[in-house]
């Protein structure tokens, strides 16, 4: 059942430009994918490592700004991508080293501080970031000679990157390292006692998370052809965090669902409803009340409940399996 759903979802995503109806909507779809990649990256920390972050927009922004500046210096796209991601990884390493000094709320607040510092630089250090006016670029890469100028082509390129992100997450989750990360989330003391280097595990998870935030930032600058300080604002980090939580942290599909929810409400609903912030907030509150574990796990749970209720009553329940060795 699950495979059918996933396959159908992938198929519809892959063919989106053909059925969404218009360039505007194809662009929204691209935005959803970019947001999804960003959210997936954040979920590595929030969902799997148990470390809440409100500063990842800083890393997203570092990639976007670095990419923009490299592009405007005339570098080829390979250099742009490699350079932007390298800078972002360095940023992530710095963020991680500082944030891991704190626990719980301390960790969150250090990420807030770091994000705000990046925002402060983006807003005020005009010589590097052009401040409020932002940086414009022109041009998208042409991988294998294919132009990405059209909305549909850009969408498909983004979709390929998105698939890579999802695949990397799936591999990570199933791997021994992924199990280590989840272990540090659940019982850090026990993990230490089992011989795991908890700090290093978290640090590496942060780098992995930062990498995908950087990829999302890079895609963003190619998509938008412009980057400004609002990309790095606290609200951007908060929105991304909300995508992860509302969709379901520590799941593969959750961040994707959350990204879809937020982007659609922001862009599409806002065309019809003036007070769409209220709607978004109300949806979040509703999710917490009815599906606190998130949209994806909540929906799965209700679906299973519905299926179980529909199944015909079996014979009286068999006795529960006996307890161990008594």
């Amino acid at each position: 059942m699950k495979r059918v759903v996933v396959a159908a979802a992938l198929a519809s995503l892959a063919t989106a430009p053909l059925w969404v109806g218009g360039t505007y909507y194809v662009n929204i779809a691209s935005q959803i994918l970019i947001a999804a990649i960003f959210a997936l990256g954040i979920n590595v920390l929030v969902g799997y490592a148990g470390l809440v972050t409100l500063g990842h927009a800083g890393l997203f922004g570092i990639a976007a700004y670095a990419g923009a500046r490299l592009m405007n210096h005339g570098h080829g796209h390979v250099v742009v991508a490699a350079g932007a991601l390298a800078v972002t990884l360095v940023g992530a390493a710095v963020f991680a080293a500082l944030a891991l000094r704190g626990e719980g709320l301390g960790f969150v607040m250090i990420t807030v501080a770091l994000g705000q510092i990046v925002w402060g630089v983006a807003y005020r250090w005009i010589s590097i970031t052009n401040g409020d006016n932002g940086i414009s670029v022109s041009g998208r890469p042409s991988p294998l000679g294919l132009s990405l100028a059209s909305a549909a082509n850009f969408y498909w390129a983004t979709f390929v990157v998105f698939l890579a992100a999802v695949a990397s997450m799936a591999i990570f989750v199933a791997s021994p390292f992924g199990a280590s990360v989840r272990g540090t989330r659940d019982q850090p003391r026990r993990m230490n006692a089992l011989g795991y280097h908890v700090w290093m595990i978290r640090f590496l998870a942060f780098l992995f998370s930062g990498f995908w935030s950087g990829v999302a930032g890079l895609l963003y600058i190619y998509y938008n052809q412009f980057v400004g300080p609002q990309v790095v604002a606290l609200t951007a980090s908060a929105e991304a965090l909300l995508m992860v939580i509302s969709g379901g942290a520590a799941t593969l599909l959750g961040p994707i669902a959350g990204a879809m929810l937020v982007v659609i409400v922001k862009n599409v609903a806002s065309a019809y409803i003036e007070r769409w912030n209220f709607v978004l907030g109300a949806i979040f509150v509703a999710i917490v009340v009815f599906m606190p574990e998130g949209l994806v796990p909540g929906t799965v749970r209700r679906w299973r409940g519905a299926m179980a209720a529909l199944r015909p009553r079996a014979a009286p329940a068999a006795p529960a399996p006996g307890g161990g060795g008594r």
Partner: protein
Amino acid sequence: MDMSLTLVLAVNSLTLGGLLFLLSAGFSLIFGLMKIPNLTHGSFFMLGGYVAASLIGWGVDFWSAALLSGLLVAAFGGIVERLILRRLAGAELAQVLVTLGLSFMVADVCLTVWTGDPIRIDTPSALRGATSVLGVAFPAYRLAIGVIAVLFAAALWALLDQTRLGAMIRAGVDDPAMARVVGIRVSRLFTLVFCLGAWLAGFAGVIGGPILSVYPGLDQEMLPLALVVVILGGSGSLLGSLVGSFIVGFLYNFGQALFPELAYVVLFLPMLVVLVLRPQGLFGRQAG
């Protein structure tokens, strides 16, 4: 920088510090006692200001409006706590999601009811103009805010340190499970503390009105500052909130004036430094 500018900035810092104390003391209590990161706190502040503006418009005097506004915000907070937050004990992520969601909703409701134009609240007539302290003229109202903040700090300290209620709160902060065993009605206590925190925030929003005005986005500007204060000072510590508030007030005002390019960096860098060196904040307890 000349002397008079320094004095002006100093007074403004004290004022902002005072407002921040009222705002963050509530947040710190709520987070310290209930472990809830109440991200709706900025909304309480803004809501207090808006409601008071309307009350004053209908003829209520400034101070009554401030008290009443606080009460209404407290009531709203109480409803939120009882209906929603109570069921989410320990579910940190859900708390973040719901309090942020509520803040979105409150922000839009305020936008609908009061529109997008900033609303000025007039300084109460008794405190208009300047007073002379040691031969120097200071705006009376700004000084008054500083005094009010200190008075509240003293009152809160007395509450926590000297009363039975305060002892229960402190017990709840230190060891909630034990507190329950000893018979402390923890859930009632929680609601009470949450309402108290909300009242403080709403009240602060009103008395901050003459200085900051009330406008959309005020909630999002004040909340990070309150968070910085709580982190700097250490959550659950009243002294920490007091000291932290004034530090942030000074950093914010002097930072803006001296380094306009690095305004935010000046604010967050010290916080970063403190956190890196002393993760529990200046006065916080060592992480358990």
